[in-house]
């Protein structure tokens, strides 16, 4: 408990958290607006045209609306979680931290707890905003709120799960990469364009090398995350839970390797 309190104090006593909060709000607003426009466009199409335009069904659109801000929110949580670790090396505070707590795994675990707290707070924040504003947005399009539908609540819950898993992944990545700039850039690139670029690679591999490579696409963390949140998009995509398992796997493996590496590494 002492260590969690110390880690929370570290977070509260620098400017980083509110800089991230200030970035999050407009990004969330953009996401909501984008989802609104998409839905507006979609509602003017027939069911069949919807499929063709690649927008999925109405359920997916409504779920998207109620989880607005997920893309940017997860990215910010991921980066903040990694920075919890990398800033110790960037600002040379690792020495002070590990002198106070030489059992380094305890420090990493405390950071993971704090990362999960951040994830839950950001998820709660965006979810409260979405629950307040999505019904209004839907109302402008003469749509019901859908709040009685289980699929909406499932989407919100899975959204929270994604936030938490990505935050753990962020801590693990921070430990492994250690360089603040390196970790921030790597995570941003992998998160933002990783899915597209890696999808292309997998398509090429499956075309020219071996067909089943396409199935391995789900190993890309962002793809696994999409699968978990939105469910299968193509007919031969694996089921939803596979995405969750893969993401948990990443979080677990990176956390364990990261903790072991931190325990062994020389500080200074």
């Amino acid at each position, binding site marked *: 408990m002492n260590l969690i309190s110390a880690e929370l104090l570290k977070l509260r006593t620098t400017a*980083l958290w509110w800089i991230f909060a200030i970035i999050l709000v407009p990004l969330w607003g953009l996401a909501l607006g984008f989802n609104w426009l998409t839905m507006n466009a979609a509602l003017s199409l027939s069911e069949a045209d919807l499929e063709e335009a690649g927008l999925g069904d109405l359920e997916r659109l409504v779920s998207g609306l109620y989880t607005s801000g997920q893309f940017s929110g997860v990215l910010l949580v991921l980066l903040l979680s990694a920075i919890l670790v990398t800033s110790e090396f960037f600002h040379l505070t690792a020495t002070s931290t590990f002198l*106070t707590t*030489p059992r380094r795994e305890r420090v990493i675990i405390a950071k993971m707890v704090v990362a999960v707290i951040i994830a839950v707070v950001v998820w709660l924040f965006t979810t409260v905003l979405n629950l307040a504003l999505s019904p209004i947005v839907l109302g402008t399009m003469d749509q019901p709120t859908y709040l009685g539908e289980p699929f909406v609540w499932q989407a919100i819950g899975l959204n929270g799960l994604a936030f938490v898993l990505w935050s753990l992944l962020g801590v693990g990545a921070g430990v492994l990469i250690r360089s603040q700039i390196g970790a921030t850039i790597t995570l941003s690139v992998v998160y933002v364009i990783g899915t597209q670029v890696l999808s292309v690679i997998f398509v090429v591999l499956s075309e020219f090398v071996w067909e089943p490579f396409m199935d391995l696409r789900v190993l890309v963390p962002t793809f696994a995350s999409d699968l978990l949140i939105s469910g299968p998009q193509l007919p031969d995509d694996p089921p939803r839970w596979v995405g969750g398992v893969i993401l948990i796997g990443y979080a677990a493996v990176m956390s364990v390797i990261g903790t072991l590496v931190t325990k062994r590494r020389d500080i200074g």
Partner: protein
Amino acid sequence: MSRPNHAEISVEHLTKQYSKVRAVDDLSFTVHAGRVTGFLGPNGAGKTTTLRMVLGLVTPTSGTATIGGVRYVDLPDPIRHVGAILEASSAHRGRSARNHLRVICRAAGLPDRRADEVLEMVGLHTVGGRKFKGYSLGMKQRLGIAAAMLGDPRVLILDEPANGLDPEGIRWMRDLLKAFAAEGRAVLVSSHLLGEMQQLADDVVIIAAGRLIRQGPVSDVLGETAGVAKVRVRTPQAEQLSAALRDAQLEVAVQPDGSLQVLGAEPARVGNVAFTAGVELHELIGEAADLERVFLELTAGKAGAR
């Protein structure tokens, strides 16, 4: 806890092999309560690496380092036993000094008010709210001391604390460390600058190239090398005096400025030889063995900077 003969820090056969360098090589020494122990060696001798191994930050290749018989990582609340100020330790640039200390208090289960108490102790209480990036080097050193004092430790370990301090700051640090030792605590302080140590240390541990050169009370280490005391003489009859001194079994070297340096003799003996030889002296200076010179002699040719 006043057990004067009990070794507070005990380093036994400590070795650290980096891929290319053996930074610390089978090093053993002890540090006792109630004394300031100077840990001396030229740059690259392995002081920082040794201190970091003692503090559990660097893993030894072999050997052990214990504090009161326990490895640092096994101490239940380490900062209540050991305070440390290391070269590369720092605080987050955007965090205030007070909050920096509070973070440590939280992690160690100490009350937040300890932060204010130690700030007062080092004279930073009026600037505790200022961000670390606005701190001068001297203030940073004071903050480092404040952090080390948080747990009211019985052992204090400092790596080159004089770096970046002005003469007044150095005097302040010296008085603080002496007072600390006078309370029966153990102080281990490293330095590559020795003039300061002579006035501060009770014991010295001298290393070079990762190996122990000498350990013991300052007076003993100085005494051991009394045999190499030097005398400088200036005379218009240098050749005559050199011959006379050599006849007296003394080692003589002509210095670039024309003076003579005589090894292994007291000024009185040199004066006597000159008098007997009827040589006129213009200057006769005994250079007492000082730590700086002893140190240079002991570590000469031991690959100082690696």
